[in-house]
Each structure stands twice: as C-alpha cells, then as structure tokens.
C-alpha cells in the first residue's frame, strides 16, 4: 500500500469479533484488516499496536459489508461472499451492500446490487428464497427480532418491511404524503442508506434527513437536522448515533435534537460499530474516507486511530 493508495482508501464496513477483542474492517481495495483491540487499548499501546495484526485481500472489488457470526467473519465483495473462520471458504452474487443474520432459523439475509434480497441457509449454504420488490439496489438491511421481520432500504427511496412471506408486509416511500415535507431533501435525492430498528422505532436516513419513525403508525415522529447524508445509524441506550457525510459522529436524542457532533479524522464516514459484546473493550469505531479508523473509548471524544 503506497501512500497514494492510502490517500484514496475508504473504509466501508466494520465488524467486531464474537469475543469482542478484535475488529475487522473492509476497504475499497477489497482488503480486510484485523486489528487487535486489546493491544490497542492496553496502557502500553504503541504505534505498532494500532496497525493491523492481519491484513489480507479478500475480494477483487470493495468490501462493502462485513458480518461476524460466532465462529466466522463473513465478507462480501463484488458478487461473492466469503466466510473466514475468525480465520476461510466461499460463495456467489453481484455487489452486496448489506448482510444480516436471522439467528432463529440460522439464515443469512443478503441485500445488494441486483435489487433483491436473498436468504441463505447457513448450514447448507443453499439459497432459500428471494425477496423481490425494490426497483433499485438495496443499501441497507435490518432485522426486527421480536417479529422476525426484515426491513430493507434502497436507492429507490423505499423502505420495505418483509415478513415470512415473499411479499412485503408493507412498504412506504419516505418521500410521499405527509412525510415528504419534513424529511425529504430533494437536493440530495431519495435514496435510503441507513436503517436501524429498535422494535417499535425505526431510524432511516440517506438522501432524506435522518428521521425516527414509529413503526405501527408508519409516521415520522422526529426529524434530525443533520446537514449531510447519513450512512449508518444505531440506537445506543437512549441516544442515537449516526455517521455520514462530514467528519463527525452525531449524537442525537429521540426528541429530535442533535446533542453533540464529535469530530474525527476521515472527511466523511461510512461505517460505525459498537463493541457491546465485550465489556473490557467497550469502544466505538468509525471508518470512512481515509486509511484510518478512529477509536472512541469514551464516546464523547476520539481516543486514537488505527491505520491500515
């Protein structure tokens, strides 16, 4: 990796290991780097501990999404998914932007460039079903555990909710009806690039502003006045954290106010991950348009950066 390549590197996806001691990040060159969080967070950490302990080329194209299971790290490149055992095998489809797991029936739900959502059985590796409905490629997926429903958001600006059948339970365009005045931002477009759900509540954002929706009534309750397009958002305790265009992590309250914007190194961020499984290494890491991944030990400020 020469300095020019580092300059043009973007980090698109992150995933913590099941034990919580390692962070895997994927970049636009198709490489995955594994960082040791315990080394980086330890009191005698040095420059070397902020470098990856393992760095390998996983795919030809960019690695847009990474997912950790109990034993494997799944990475998706252009039309292929590889599973690396918190060390490897492989499979097939066009660019995959999002992957989630349905733990109840052990299936992998994949959404990507062909406008469809594919569900694969993890044990056999066979694709069980295809959910069609989106008219443009799928940006993000999330899973409602209680009802076992899948939410998907795509380039066409629609958020669809899928149940056990192949027909969407419901779908709504964020740019239609009452919703449009509040959250739509036509200067950016209508694409939805981030989705998060907390059973009754759903966050979605992208071209339209980041907004909090109440699922049962299908209406937005609050709209967050964040300037850029948000690419990833999560619920954390009583806060909402989101990242996107602009070199900061935004902390927002459910009421619709932006509590804080924490600056970070990359000029715009693609991915945010919280390490909640391991109480020792409770960190938040963000990556984006830079070869550096910022690590936040206290969520209010950036502690240090790992670099590819």
């Amino acid at each position: 990796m020469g300095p020019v390549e580092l300059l043009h590197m973007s980090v698109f996806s992150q995933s913590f290991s099941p034990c919580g001691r390692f962070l895997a990040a994927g970049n636009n060159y198709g490489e995955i780097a594994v960082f040791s969080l315990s080394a980086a967070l330890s009191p005698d950490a040095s420059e070397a501990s902020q470098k990856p302990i393992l760095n390998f080329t996983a795919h030809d194209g960019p690695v847009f999404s990474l997912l950790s299971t109990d034993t494997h790290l799944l990475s998706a490149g252009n039309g292929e998914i590889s599973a690396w055992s918190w060390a490897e095998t492989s499979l097939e489809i066009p660019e995959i932007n999002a992957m989630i797991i349905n733990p109840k029936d052990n299936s992998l739900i994949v959404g990507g460039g062909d406008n469809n959502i594919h569900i694969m059985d993890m044990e056999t590796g066979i694709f069980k079903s295809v959910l069609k409905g989106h008219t443009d490629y799928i940006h993000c997926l999330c899973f409602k555990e209680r009802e076992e429903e899948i939410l998907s958001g795509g380039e066409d600006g629609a958020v669809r909710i899928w149940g056990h059948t192949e027909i969407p339970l419901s779908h709504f365009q964020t740019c239609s009806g009452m919703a449009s005045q509040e959250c739509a931002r036509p200067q950016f477009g209508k694409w939805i690039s981030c989705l998060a759900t907390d059973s009754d509540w759903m966050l979605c954002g992208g071209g339209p502003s980041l907004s909090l929706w109440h699922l049962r009534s299908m209406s937005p309750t609050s709209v967050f006045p964040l300037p850029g397009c948000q690419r990833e958002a999560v619920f954390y305790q009583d806060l909402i954290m989101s990242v996107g265009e602009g070199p900061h992590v935004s902390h927002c309250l459910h009421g619709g106010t932006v509590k804080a914007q924490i600056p970070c190194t990359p000029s715009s961020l693609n991915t945010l991950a919280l390490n909640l499984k391991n109480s020792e290494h409770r960190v938040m890491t963000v990556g984006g348009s830079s070869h550096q991944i910022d690590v936040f030990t206290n969520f209010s400020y950036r502690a240090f950066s790992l670099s590819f």
Partner: protein
Amino acid sequence: MFHFYHVSKTGSERVNDADICFIQCSVHFITLKKLNRLAHMRLKKGRDQTHEAKQRVDVLHLQLQNLLYEVMHLQKEISKCLEFKSQHEEIELVSEEEFFQEAPAEISRPHVTRDDNHQLTLARLDWELEQRKRLAEQYKMSLARKEKIQKAIEQKREYLSSLQPGLQNIMQASLPVQEYLSMPFEQMQKQAEVARHLPPPLYVLLVQAAAYGQACDKTLSVNISGDVDEAKALSRRPEDSQEDESDSDAEEEQQNTKRRRATVGVQLEDKRKAMLRRHPLSLCVDLKCKDGSVLHLFFYYLMNLNILTVKTKVSTATDLSGAVSAGELLNSESLLNCLYASDHGKETPNPANRYQFDKVGITTFADYVSDLGHPYVWVQKLGGLQFSSDGAQVCLRGSALSASHMEKTMKLLRGRLQARLALHKQFSSLEHSIIPVSSECQHLFPAKVVSGLTRWTMMSYQEFTHVLKAGLVCETDLFFMAVVERGTARLLAAVVLNPRYPEVMPLFSLSLHWKGERSGRTEDNLRAMESEVNVFRAELQGPRPGLQLLTNQIQRLCVCLDVYLETESQVCDGSEGPREFPREKMCLRTARGPSRLKPFKYNHPQGFFSHR
C-alpha cells in the same frame, strides 16, 4: 721621684739625702736615655737586615718568573710545532702494502724506507705524484674523445629532427583513414596522455565511462577539457606550495597587526576560494539520443573537498520554444534533481567537509552550487568515491564501485532526458488545449470526449501547500494547474510532478466549480475521480517507457468529468428544468455501494462504463 719629692718635702734636715737622691735620679735618667738610644739603634739595624733580605728574595723571585715565562713560551712553541700539519698529510695516499706492491723499486726504495718513516713518506708522495701525472694525461685523452662523440651525436640529432615534419604529414594523412576505420588511435593516445594528469576520481570516471561506451552504448562519448599545463604544475608542486603557505602565513600575520580591518574579510574570501578550488581538468560526457538531442555532462573535481560535481547542458536537434510552462523542465540547475530518490545535490556528501567549512565560515554548500556544479551522490559513486554515510552495504571502492553504478546511472540519465523532452513537447501541446494521446493509448478512452482542457499553467510551491497532500509533496517537485471545462462546470486540477517522472506518478488534486464548490476533500465522487487518475499506473502508463503517463491521466480526467456531469444531473429530479448535460455515456448503473459512487471505469471494446 716620689722618693725625691718626699724627701724634698721632708725638708732641709736631710739635705744630703736629697742630693744623693738627686744624683741617683740623674744617673737613672742618663741610663734611660742610653737604653732608649740603644733600642732605637737595634731596631734600625734589624730593619736594615730585613730590607736586605727582602731585596734578595725579590731578585730571585724575578728570576724565577722570567724562567717560568720562558718555559711557557718554549712550551707553546713546541706545541705549535707539533701541531703543524703539513699539506702532505691531506693527500690520501695508498696504503703501505699497496705502495710496496705497486711502486717501482727506484721510488719505493724499500731498503731505506722500511726503516725510516720520513723516507717512507717521501717515497709515497713521489709515487702519488707519478700516478697523478699519468692519470691527468688519461683524463685529457678521454675529454678529447668525448668531444668527438658529442659532435657525432649532434649531427645525428639534426638528422632526426629533420625527419619530424615528414612524420607529421604522414600522421595527418592517416587521420581520415583512422576515422573511416573507426579506430581513433591518435585521439586515444592524446587522451591517454592528458589523462595521466587527471586526479584519481576523474580518472576512474574516464576509464569506466569510456569502457561502458565502447562495450554497451555507442552513443556515449567522453572528452577531457581544461588546462593541461596547470594540471602538470599542480602535480609537480605540492611541497613547494606548503612552504609557500607557511611563509605567506607569517607575512600575513605581520600585515595583520598593522592593518587588521582591511584584510580579514578579504583573507577569508581568499581562503574560501582556495578551499573551493577546482582541478583545472574536467571531463565532458555526451549522451546522444535517437532524436538528435544531446545531454552534456561536465564533471569537475574539487581538490580540497575531495568531491566531484556535475553541470549539465542540453542541446536539442530542434528548437524548443513556445511552452511557457515548460521553462523549468530543462533548466540545467534542476534537470538532474533526484535522479535517485532524495538525491538533491544541494549539500556535499563528504562529511569531512563540514569541518573544513567551519574553518572558513561557509555555512551551506548550496550557495556555491550554481557556480561549482551539483555534488550528487551518484556522481561520487561514478568516480569511485564512497563516503561512509552511504550505509553499511557492500564496501566497494574505486573502479568496482564506479563500474557497478555506471550502467544504471547512464540509463537513468538517458531516461530523464527523454522524459523531459517528451514532457516539453506535451506541454507545448497542452498549452494549446490539445491533449496529445498517442494511438497506442486510444483504447483507454471512449471515442467521444466532450470535456476539454482549457488551461495549463505552472504554479509555485506556496500556492500549492494549501491544496494539501499528505507528505507526498516536497519543494523540489514541479507544480501545475490544469483547468478542464464543460458547459458551466469547471474542474480545477492541481498537479504535482515529481522530478523522477515517469517512475513516480504525478498526483492530481481536484476541485469542481459547478453549482457550488466541491473538492476531493469533501466529496466521495471527486475523491473517486482522484483515485481513478492517481492510482492506476499500470493502465495509464502506456507503452514503455511510459512517457504518455501525464497526458493519459489528463485525458482520463476529462472522461471522468464527463461521466460525473452526465450522471449527476439525474439525481435532482425535475425541479430544475432541462438537464444541462444529457446522458450520452453508456453506464450500467449510475450508483453503487454505500457511498453511491459513479461508474468511472471505461471498458474497452464494449465501450460502457462500470464500477471498479
């Protein structure tokens, strides 16, 4: 007396007693006087006797002294006589045995001389005289012979010198033959003759360069130029010059105490000049290229600093003018900058020079570089000079070091010249807003490219720093600004050209002025365009030796701008009226991935755009 007085006092009853006493007193007085007289006379007699004795002693004493003086005088005379060296003792005589053996009987007269030393010496002297007379005669004869032979030699010499012009004519006549046969013997001899006076590093360079030229590269030629006589004078005179220095130092000190202020500055200046003196001879190496341009390299040796420096000159077959921005490219100061990475040639590579500089108050060598030439590290290596800071690798010295670097350096030099000439041509075409894409590289770009280059200018380092770059830029790089336009959109590209182009790719930094201002720092798509142009060297460099790199990068920039503008119009739906840039490029998808990048990659025969 008392008795008399007493008696006289006692009175006249005793008148008889008084008279008796009186008579007795007078008798005593007379006796006293007589005794006194006697004493005086005895004294006198004694004195007289002493006096006489003394006189006798004096006489004897005088006699003694006279005698002593005479003795001393005689002794001196004797010693003088004894010390007398007669001349005959200085003559080296043959030893006695030899004398008795060689001398004829009438001279040696052994029966007499054996006993009598005096006679022996006389005989020996005689013999000496005889021998000398004989030898003198021989000497005269030899002298006469020598004269004769001398005359004969003179005659022969005259004869030879009369031959000289004839030989010269023959040599001249043979020159064309030598050239025809490409065996320039005479030239090489002359060069070898002069080469003997070269200082060692230049000699090594000459030998290695000539050898390389003969063996591998017919277009390389080496010449020696400079003042041979001065060089000869230099080599002859090292002891003299040291003495002169010490004398002149003493003189200068005396002068100093009288006229301190006037001479210190001048003195320092002179010392500096002396330290930076060049050897009178220099090497000129010419590298010719296929298109007729020549790179002239002049190598100088700084004697006191023990380093080599180089100056360059480029002469081209055609006149190179018209490209304003190309002014810096063939500038002889910077032409050979960074031939090897980070070899700037501003400081002397010999660490010992630091101490020398401190003595004469030179702070940096960079001030003198334009006069004296650049002391690049590769120049030192070609001359076989190795300085310890060069790392603990294989420790070659002298010719081996030079030989190991020669081929690579010559290739780099040639490559550098060709790259710069190619850039020169490209620049003059870029300034006319034409991007010269050669036919081998046409496949990288679609047939129709609407965006065009409207401006190509030079920038300075200060203007560039605010545009950033993470430590990839330094002062020796060349900076340019390219402006690409289509319709109302203007793309400003700041270009950093490393002196080692095309080994090091030029870097582009973009900012777009179209409905607001966006730059590669803030927008992902512009960043993707930058990476499209900066990163993919293997695709963009074109056929070897990769001189098309810059123009291909610019062309690709234009293509990417086309794609950007045409696909961007789709996002803002309807609310702004007709699109400014209709979709002409064939793209499978206009957005892909979480950052929704545009399809910048061109696929060749099919002619569509896709994502990487």
